[in-house]
């Protein structure tokens, strides 16, 4: 029973990181109809940026994190939107999907050739050690990850639901034309979504890199799992991304411990297939109807 609880807590912590990335998927989809298959690389690039600020510029981690947030907002938010999404989105989703796939490969190769192909260490912001709660032993890293990811997610939900800007962003997500008629600056709201996605990627990088290690291909696994999580939870619901992320994280852990670690990596895909077949809109998603 103690093992089970430990597995669930540690799986939820991992799932929370998937959820941060999955949130990015759903936000971009809702606001601009963008599916970003370079989402994993959007986590990898901030990891290397933080390492640059720490190792080369000699900055402390907190300052490196803040500077990386700024650079990511410019590079992965504003520039990505203006240079790739805006020109392509008018041609439909498919060209953009192909372009982001290309971006994913290009960024990986750029980091591999221009920085390093080898993994680099990245220190955790949480201390080593175990928190003992009776017989239950949980690492500070898992607890910290869970708390930080939870705060970010709850904060984002509050921002979207309780602020004028957040509601305007939701209005744009629900119906762009109506939002425009209501006087909402649609372009600005969409830009905000891209900026938020960039910051979520930096937080995910901060939390996941100590385990994954900074490497040019570190985004492959996390990007794919976040995509599965977003589909499982419901691509058109931010709450769905959370559920999908946590579900994938916990099920991976349980499968690894009680069946075999060999099947662990396939869990997300299996769940994804089941959901696509039996509930294609996702567990919390809403069915969207389209005129043909």
């Amino acid at each position, binding site marked *: 029973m103690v*093992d089970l609880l*430990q*597995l669930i807590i*540690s*799986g939820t912590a*991992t799932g929370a990181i998937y959820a941060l990335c999955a949130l990015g998927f759903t936000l971009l989809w809702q606001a601009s109809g963008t599916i970003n298959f370079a989402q994993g690389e959007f986590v990898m690039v901030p990891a290397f940026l933080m390492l640059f600020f720490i190792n080369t510029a000699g900055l402390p981690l907190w300052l490196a994190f803040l500077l990386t947030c700024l650079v990511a907002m410019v590079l992965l938010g504003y520039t990505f939107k203006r240079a790739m999404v805006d020109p392509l989105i008018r041609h439909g989703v498919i060209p953009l999907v192909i372009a982001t796939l290309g971006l994913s490969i290009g960024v990986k190769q750029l980091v*591999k050739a221009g920085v390093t*192909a*080898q*993994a*680099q*260490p990245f*220190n955790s912001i949480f201390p*080593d*050690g*175990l928190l003992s709660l009776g017989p239950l*032993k949980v*690492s500070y*890293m*898992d607890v910290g990850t869970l708390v930080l990811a939870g705060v970010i997610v709850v904060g984002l939900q509050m921002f979207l639901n309780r602020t004028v800007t957040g509601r305007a962003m939701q209005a744009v997500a629900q119906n762009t034309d109506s939002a425009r008629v209501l006087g909402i600056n649609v372009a600005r709201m969409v830009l905000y979504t891209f900026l938020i996605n960039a910051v979520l990627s930096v937080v995910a990088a901060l939390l996941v890199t*100590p*385990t*994954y*290690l900074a*490497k*040019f*291909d*570190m985004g492959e*696994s996390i990007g794919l799992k976040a995509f599965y999580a977003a589909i499982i939870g419901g691509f058109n619901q931010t709450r769905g991304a959370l559920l999908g992320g946590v579900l994938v994280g916990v099920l*991976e*852990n349980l*499968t*690894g*411990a009680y069946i*075999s*670690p*060999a099947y*662990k*990596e396939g869990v997300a895909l299996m769940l994804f297939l089941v959901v696509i077949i039996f509930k294609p809109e996702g567990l919390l998603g809403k069915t969207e109807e389209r005129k043909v």
Partner: protein
Amino acid sequence: MKKINLIMAGVLGLALGPITATACFAQQAPIPIVGLVELSGTGATAGTNFDNGVRLAVKEINASGGILGRQIQYTSMDTQSAPQTAKALAQKAIDEKAYVVMGPVFSGSFIVSMAETKRAEIPNFTGGEAANITQQGNPYVFRTSFTQSTAMPKLARYIKDTVKAKTIAIVWVNNDFGKGGRDSMAKALEAQGIKVAADVSTDPGQVDFSAAVLKVKQSNADAVFVYTNEEESARALRELKKQGYDKPIIGETTLTGQKVIELAGEAANGAVAHVGLTVDAPQPQIKAFDQKFQAEYKYKSDHNGMKGYSGMYVVKAITEKIRKVDSKEFAKALHGATIRAKDYPGVLLDVSFDANGDLDRESFLVKVEGGKQVVTATLPPISPIK
């Protein structure tokens, strides 16, 4: 008559001149050696180190006049840690008329690519440790490190006599390297009467070891033996520390490699391994290598860098022994050969090769303390080197 002789001599001179010139040119042309190395993908750490080791040796050999007066022309190609790419590049190395091929380091890639070099009768050195590499009767295969079937019995004895473990959990990576190591270790442990309490397979490139470590803890074994590639070893060590694992952590070579220590940070402290080569060994020629490598690349070499470096000096020693650049003769001469470090300090330790291409030499037991490898014992070769 004199005039006719003079004309004939002139004609002969004109006819033979180009041939002689070509022969002289061939004598002085660089010796092409190709490296098939993992410069990207899951084996990037191992391959890059191996490649850097070879490059350093080539630079030194060329600076000291080359081999038999000829410079070495070394070209490395990236296998991307993929066996299919390695096989294709092996063909390319043959097309480039390589005298010797260095690598790949990954056993899985080597097992596929060595068929090509065998067909072309080109000696092929590997950093791979999988036991089956040298069990296929390929006369052109040579190791730069121990085979698993040599290393594991040494380690199993240590686990029994020093750790005094009666049960052990094995965490291994599911590729040719890992499977070979797991099988050799299981056999060696059985011979020592040690029971395998948990047999945990992991994937190449696996990032999350939480479930694997939990399995190890659930088994309640006296110690854990971790046999994975560099990055995975670091992740496993980090997860073991994260979950508060407090029993002996034992490995073979990779677990305490420099890159693993760098990546795992404090989590590497306390890990123990049997290593064939380590820059922290006390031998003066190894200390000299360590200094030269650090001066060249600004980081400390792991065992793979030493494999590449010493392998290249084996090429020099044997070529100078046979006094010609002939791939077939080279392969014949290396079987059963012994090279001494006093004659060729670049081989780092006295080394002998058997009829299969397996090598034998001293090895070390190391423990990671304060982020550094500390040699705790020097183990003799299996057979005394004569």
